[in-house]
């Protein structure tokens, strides 16, 4: 390219060697580079690195939170499921108990009713016996009187003597009873 242009011998003027440095420029070069290195080391790098670390922490923290929330939800679900199963089991147990209790109550009631009816029957039987005995007793005296009166009228003999009268009646009745029981015994035998 230099061949195109005119000779430069006198044009070059001062003798400038571009490889020789100006001392102030080397010094300024050092100073500026150190200054910039300090700026980056003290301000830019710490600030940016902190921002990066915060950013990483924020992202990781968000993921951690989500994971934790998921775990919590799962734990709650498990707990509710467990509680539900427990409640179901309990309900079944209560039903079972109720059934058993119902059966027991019915059995008890039945027993009580049986006892009551038995008692009523016994009582009635006793009453009947007593009434019968009473009836027998009253009949006995009435029959005695009526028979005596009848006998007196028939015989025409006044049986005033009480003792004798009673004896006679007693004897009659005893005979009567004996014959009756004998007949009865024969009846049952036959």
């Amino acid at each position, binding site marked *: 390219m*230099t061949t195109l242009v005119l000779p430069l011998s006198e044009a070059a003027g001062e003798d400038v060697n571009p490889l020789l440095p100006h001392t102030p420029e080397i010094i300024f070069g050092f100073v500026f580079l150190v200054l910039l290195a300090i700026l980056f080391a003290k301000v830019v790098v710490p600030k940016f690195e902190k*921002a990066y670390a915060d950013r990483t922490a924020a992202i990781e923290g968000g993921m951690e939170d989500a994971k934790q929330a998921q775990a919590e939800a799962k734990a709650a679900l498990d707990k509710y499921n467990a509680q539900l199963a427990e409640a179901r089991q309990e309900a079944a147990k209560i039903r079972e108990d109720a059934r058993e209790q119902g059966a027991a109550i019915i059995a008890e009631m039945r027993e009580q009713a049986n006892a009551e009816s038995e008692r009523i029957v016994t009582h009635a039987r006793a009453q009947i016996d007593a009434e019968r005995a009473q009836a027998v007793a009253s009949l006995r005296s009435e029959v005695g009187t009526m028979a005596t009166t009848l006998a007196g009228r028939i015989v025409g003999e006044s049986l005033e003597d009480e003792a004798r009268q009673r004896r006679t009646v007693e004897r009659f009745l005893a005979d009567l009873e004996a014959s009756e029981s004998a007949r009865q015994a024969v009846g049952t035998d036959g």
Partner: protein
Amino acid sequence: MIAGVPTEFIPPGPQNFDTPPIIDGVEWFTKPVLVSALSVVVIIWFYWAASRKAAIVPSRLQFAGELGYNFVRNSIARDAIGSQEYMKYVPYLCGLFYFILLNNVAGTIPLVQFPTFSHIGWAYAAAIMSWIIYNAVGIRKKGLWGYFKHQTMPAGVPVWLMPLMIPIEFISNIVVRPISLSLRLFANMFAGHILLLVFVLGGHYMVFESGNVLLGGVGVITFIFGLAIAGLELFVQAIQAYIFVVLTAQYIGSAIADEH
């Protein structure tokens, strides 16, 4: 400008990189110093504002800052140094990358249009800094003797080759690296700037000062080409910043690597 009176074309050369003091008497305050100081201010402002209220949900500015920071942190530092120890070097690599990037791109930014690293002093400063750092971390990790052994005696090389290997490895790993780092960056910026100057000054000369219509037509094409070259330069400027930082990270990574 007067047609018919051709003036001599002065081709761009090293003298175009001569930057006089901006303020008379203050020798050190030159254009590259101003540009690089501005770049430092821009980087500090941007990253300070982007990271000041760094939150989990980033603002737009923070998002942009994280994008730039992550590029160096993950694509350069972590890949080259390994996920164990790379965080220690991220601040330097970040500062280095954006410092070189902005100062390179300054060669394309209108009105600024001066790549700081076309003055080799800056390239030396960055390369020496990287050289000190990778050697220092290597020595601190393996001890002086262990580090030199690590850098000059590759594993698996037969003993009889060692007399050959040790000087070669020493020169390539310890001596040449800062030189190649600084020269690559400087030369790319220097040559790129000269290339642009050739197209722009040449086009200007041909159109306005040569007094030749034919040359004027060529000059217009030259201008258009200059634009294309500027686009290419933008690409080269970004690539060079990337290469410088990737190589620095790789040197650090190889200095502290456990085995070859």
